[in-house]
């Protein structure tokens, strides 16, 4: 029996998705064990074995794939509990890392502290060496000085060392020599070189990425070793893969070297899962959103490819390796509503969190939150929150909104609650706008895939504000990320800075660099068990108009023989002008352009589980009708039918206004929307004045 398991370790719960060979899937949940997360993981595997009425050993031996998402590195950075890390850089440039380019976000506010350093100044060493801007070694590495630094690092119990020297992306000679001395002198320490992790121009961004890699590397390596050991001892012989920030997965060995790639992997499963739910309807242009307790994540997917950024950030430091471009805003169920000094309503970014949480949780919270507003407006049932596990206190919610919002604005509690609802919707809508319109893509031709406990309460309003015609709501939002993990391919990113004016470009040199990257990628993917015919390379070129300081990424065609031809360059140029225009409102035909970086994303296709479709039950949803209650829409309360989501099946139709309740989420269907259950029992919502097949047809046509 070939089982597959997706494991998503969250702050409170660890979610498991178990899929068997027939495509039947089941969800499991255990409490996370932050001290050693592998305990929580083993507990979950035990539960699954019990569920399947097998011994753990038998289950593990039948388990062919585990895809594992972990926030262990993320938490280490956010709480500054990483490894004791040393950092080595070029003499004269000791503080580039901690200067963080000299920015302060809140410009008018002199009363807060900068983010605490990842590596303190006392732990940053410099050595004499210099490469010039053309890649020449003008000062060779001072090896005597380096030997002394290695000795100091050895004596002082550092667990990891990050190295990044000036222009090492052009010529890694000095850095490699330094790395060799470190590896010889410190065989037990985690050593990370910028020329191995990110050979790309921009010193702070490179330094920061390497420092973070060193800072979390030992922790991740140790955790993976523990986990592998536990699994192996239990009889597991399948594949273990680790979720990455770029939406792909990697083997444990590669992940241990590129630990920085897991830092932003928490929300990365979402977009990949979104891809899967879109694919059910043949849709590849999507925006996935996830609204939880404290934050809202939005990601654009174009032609089945999630957007990528190199502007990632964590704990005030930059991660310049490619990661999924996910816009995160402080908008969630716990977001706090307040009235500022000018009498303006604000919602978020501060959150009441889970403890004390929203006022209606009855745990002593007095802040008015989005969840309180959702309760007052009738979207939430006080007796069926988390399937009835938790009773909500409507009186407390009323008091909180009255005190913090209604009185200050001179409006009723209901108006105040509607205001909070509207305001948080607008904030999220702007987040959606940032990933779509601001990047040159029209939301009218995208579908919205919604996850997170609070997401489906607000989804229709976001879609309406952005003219998004179709909303997909996967059943059971917890499945969302775990399913995404099982759907992920292996993905490795490579970059080489090759700065040259496009008209002076030497095609054979470009081809040579691309081939080098491809060979590296092929070797890595093959070591991870991917046969050559499942390796899919995608080359990109970062380009800009001569003299610009930021680049636009454009696809670089390359023939199967590894050739780059003259006409490929003119195609590249055309694509660049078009993309620049779409992004920024202008392009400059005829102006000189330059190539900066060549990139490769190499995908190793994994074998995906198939999910079993459910039987069509026809449109009648009346069996699922629970009751009616007063729910606020637009200007007032309306008597609204409430359906039990667990009793809804493939084919069932619901006409707004309506509420659909699931144990972990609630779907609000406004009066001008309809809702239908699709072949996998997921929900699909669309405006009443449109026909579903027409919308889908139009979205497909625009792909």
């Amino acid at each position: 029996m070939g089982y597959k398991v997706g494991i998503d370790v969250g702050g409170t719960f660890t979610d498991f998705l178990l899929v068997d060979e027939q495509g039947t899937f089941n969800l499991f949940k255990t409490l996370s064990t932050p001290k050693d997360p592998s305990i929580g993981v083993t507990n979950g595997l035990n539960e699954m074995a019990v569920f399947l009425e097998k011994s753990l050993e038998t289950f593990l031996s039948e388990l062919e794939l585990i895809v594992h998402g972990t926030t262990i590195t993320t938490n280490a950075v956010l709480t500054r509990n990483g490894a004791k890390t040393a950092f080595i850089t070029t003499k004269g440039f000791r503080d580039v890392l901690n200067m963080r380019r000299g920015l302060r976000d809140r410009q008018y506010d002199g009363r807060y502290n900068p983010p605490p350093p990842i590596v303190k100044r006392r732990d940053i060493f410099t050595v004499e060496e210099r490469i010039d801007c053309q890649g020449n070694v003008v000062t060779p590495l001072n090896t005597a000085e380096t030997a002394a630094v290695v000795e100091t690092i050895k004596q002082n119990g550092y667990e990891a060392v990050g190295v990044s020297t000036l222009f090492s992306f052009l010529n890694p000679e000095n850095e490699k020599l330094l790395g060799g001395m470190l590896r010889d002198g410190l065989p037990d320490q985690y050593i990370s070189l910028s020329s191995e992790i990110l050979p790309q121009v921009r010193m702070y961004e490179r330094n920061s990425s390497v420092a973070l890699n060193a800072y979390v590397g030992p922790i991740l390596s140790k955790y993976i070793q523990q986990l592998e050991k536990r699994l192996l001892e239990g009889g597991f012989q399948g594949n273990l893969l680790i979720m990455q920030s770029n939406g792909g997965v990697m083997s444990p060995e590669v992940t241990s070297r590129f630990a920085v790639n897991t830092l932003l992997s928490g929300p990365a499963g979402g977009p990949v899962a979104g891809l899967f739910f879109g694919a059910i309807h043949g849709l590849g242009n999507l925006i996935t959103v996830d609204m939880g307790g404290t934050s809202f994540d939005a990601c654009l997917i174009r032609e089945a490819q999630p957007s990528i950024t190199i502007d990632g950030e964590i704990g005030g430091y930059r991660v310049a390796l490619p990661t999924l471009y996910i816009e995160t805003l402080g908008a969630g169920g716990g977001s706090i509503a307040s009235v500022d000094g000018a009498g303006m309503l604000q919602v978020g970014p501060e959150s009441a969190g889970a403890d004390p949480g929203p006022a209606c949780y009855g745990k002593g919270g007095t802040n008015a939150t989005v969840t309180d507003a959702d309760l007052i407006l009738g979207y939430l049932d006080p007796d069926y929150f988390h399937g009835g596990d938790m009773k909500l206190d409507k009186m407390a919610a009323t008091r909180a909104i009255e005190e913090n919002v209604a009185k200050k604005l001179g409006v009723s509690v209901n108006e105040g609650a509607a205001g909070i609802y509207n305001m948080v919707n607008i904030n999220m809508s702007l987040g959606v706008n940032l990933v779509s319109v601001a990047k040159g893509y029209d939301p009218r031709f995208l579908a919205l895939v919604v996850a997170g406990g609070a997401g489906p309460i607000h989804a229709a309003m976001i879609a309406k504000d952005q003219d998004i015609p179709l909303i997909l709501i996967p059943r059971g939002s917890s499945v969302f990320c775990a399913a995404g993990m099982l759907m992920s391919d292996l993905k490795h990113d490579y970059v080489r800075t090759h700065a040259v004016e496009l008209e002076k470009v030497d095609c054979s040199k470009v081809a040579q660099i691309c081939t080098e990257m491809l060979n590296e990628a092929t070797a890595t993917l093959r070591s991870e068990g991917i046969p050559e015919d499942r390796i899919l390379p995608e080359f990109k070129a970062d380009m800009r108009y001569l003299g610009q300081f930021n680049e636009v990424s454009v696809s670089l065609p390359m023939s199967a023989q590894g050739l780059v031809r003259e006409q490929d360059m003119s195609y590249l140029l055309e694509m660049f002008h078009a993309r620049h225009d779409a992004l920024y409102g202008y392009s400059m035909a005829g102006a000189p352009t330059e190539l900066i970086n060549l990139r490769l994303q190499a995908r190793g296709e994994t074998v995906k589980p198939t999910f079993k479709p459910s039987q069509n039950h026809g449109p009648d949803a009346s069996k699922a009708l629970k009751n009616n209650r007063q729910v606020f829409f637009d200007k007032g309360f309306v008597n609204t039918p409430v359906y039990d989501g667990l009793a809804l099946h493939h084919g069932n139709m619901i006409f707004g206004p309506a509420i659909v309740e699931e144990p972990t989420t609630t779907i609000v269907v406004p009066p001008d929307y309809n809702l239908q259950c699709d072949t996998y029992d997921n929900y699909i919502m669309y405006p009443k004045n449109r026909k579903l097949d027409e919308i889908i047809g139009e979205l497909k046509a625009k792909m």
Partner: protein
Amino acid sequence: MQTKIDPIFRSVLANRFDAVCSEMGETMMLTSRSPIFSEARDFVTAIFDAKGRMIAQKPYIAVLAGALPYNMTKLMEWYGDDIMDGDVILTNDPYLGGNNHKPDFTVARPIFKGDQLAFWAVAKGHHVDTGASGVVGYNPTASSIFEEGLRIPPVKLYRKGRFNRSVWNLILKNIRMEFMVEGDLNCQTGATKVGERKLKRAMSMYGMDIMDQAIEEILDSTERHMRAEIAKIPDGVYRAERYMDHDGFDRDKMVKVQVEIRVEGEKITFDFTGSDPQVRGSINSTIGNTFSTVCLALFTTIDPEIRKNDGAMRCIDLIAPPGTVVNCLEPAACTSCTICTTACICEAIWLALSEAVPHLTQAAWARWSAPATMGFNPRTGRFFGDIHFMCKGGAGATLGYDGWDHLGVISCAGGLRAPDPELHELVTPYTVLEYEYLKDSAGPGKWRGGMGTSYSWRVDADGILSDNFGDGLRPETAPFGIAGGKGTRPSKLLVRRPDGSTEDPDVHKYVELNKGDIYEIEEAGGGGYGNPFERPVERVLDDVIDGLVSVESAKDDYGVIVDPGKLSVDMAATERFRNPA
């Protein structure tokens, strides 16, 4: 129709306006050609209404923002009823266009609803070349505006949507770095286009009537917020004066800015009577720049969350006598005002306010003191122009917080992104030798100032012109501490020639740089806050271990006795030294 606007709708709309300004700013940052826009973010984006009132803004460079209302007033006066849909208007003129100074090009696009003017989208930024005989717009020998580069009164880059070729040609053919200026003008035009797209969408969603009413309420409520903040400052009259090094002509005479702040209930007046008459050199501040600086000094002291729109600005009463360094008259030179004079005005206001609200006021930031340079780079075969923005000084400390390191200059209030040293070398004929924190540069205090910077580079080409357009090289103009905190050493500049000779670049002076020259800069840190002898011993020790504070300074300035070998504190000796019997 006079209905009361839903307070929630006005909150939503205010959010939308902010978002539009941010998006315009993103466009500028990502598409600019000059490092001054894209790396140093020396620009601002804003939305104005049909009456020329500022509704929202995104100031990457704080000091540019407050002058925008002066721009828009002049520009609307200039064109009167000749403002058409599809126009894009440009000006850089400090007198005819209400600009801070000439290197900033202001681009404004009127946005129409039907045939009615509804909004303006505005993008203003510092250009790399204005055609002046100076360096990146800075000309230390200029004694009038006519020597400070091309003067562009309000002109139309586009007229009714049609590209106005003659204006573009006239501008671009008068400057050296044509392709950069052309690129950045396109980038600004593109940003206002993005603003137009967004505002048109909002207009069609909400309708103009309701938006107009909401705007009134947004501005009025901001005014109420601002007045409530002013009322928290104790009534009284507070005075201070600060100096600039000199004007580049009379090198022995410091130039004075004097302020008297009068607070009565919800009213605040900034009276600069007594400031020096306008001078020959370029440190004269235009009225727009002075007003902008007053906003900056005040907004960095009171609630930072106040919306920086017309509602807030209308609460500020400014008295700046015409013909002085804080309100210069045509044709006074004024290019250095956004740096030198802004810092000086801001310091005078903070120093005065430190008497009224010491718990809110910051100690002085390091003044800007580093050159702009310009020349030909033989390696790339192109002209280059650069401001050495790596020389960021320290910020001043406040009650409870150390100043931020490497954050200056105050004109930018922490929005100035330091350039990347690698990209810098790829464009310029320079080799950076050192770029680190400068030891003992921070002003001691219970909360210390931010660290200054040690920055030096070797010149790899001949015939490069430089001009230090900042100041702060004298003890009188170095950052001060407040509430018992100490000030810092002045900044220090030196050019070393290959033959062993040296030249003092001073300020406002052309210095030619040639192959092999080494330019060394020690940029000051920020002023400290509170008695340094009250700084916790462990924090002083931390700074010593991190190599930011010397063992000597730990003793002399902080009264902490550190063993230089073991880097440990002698607690008993420290106690005796800090509290002598």
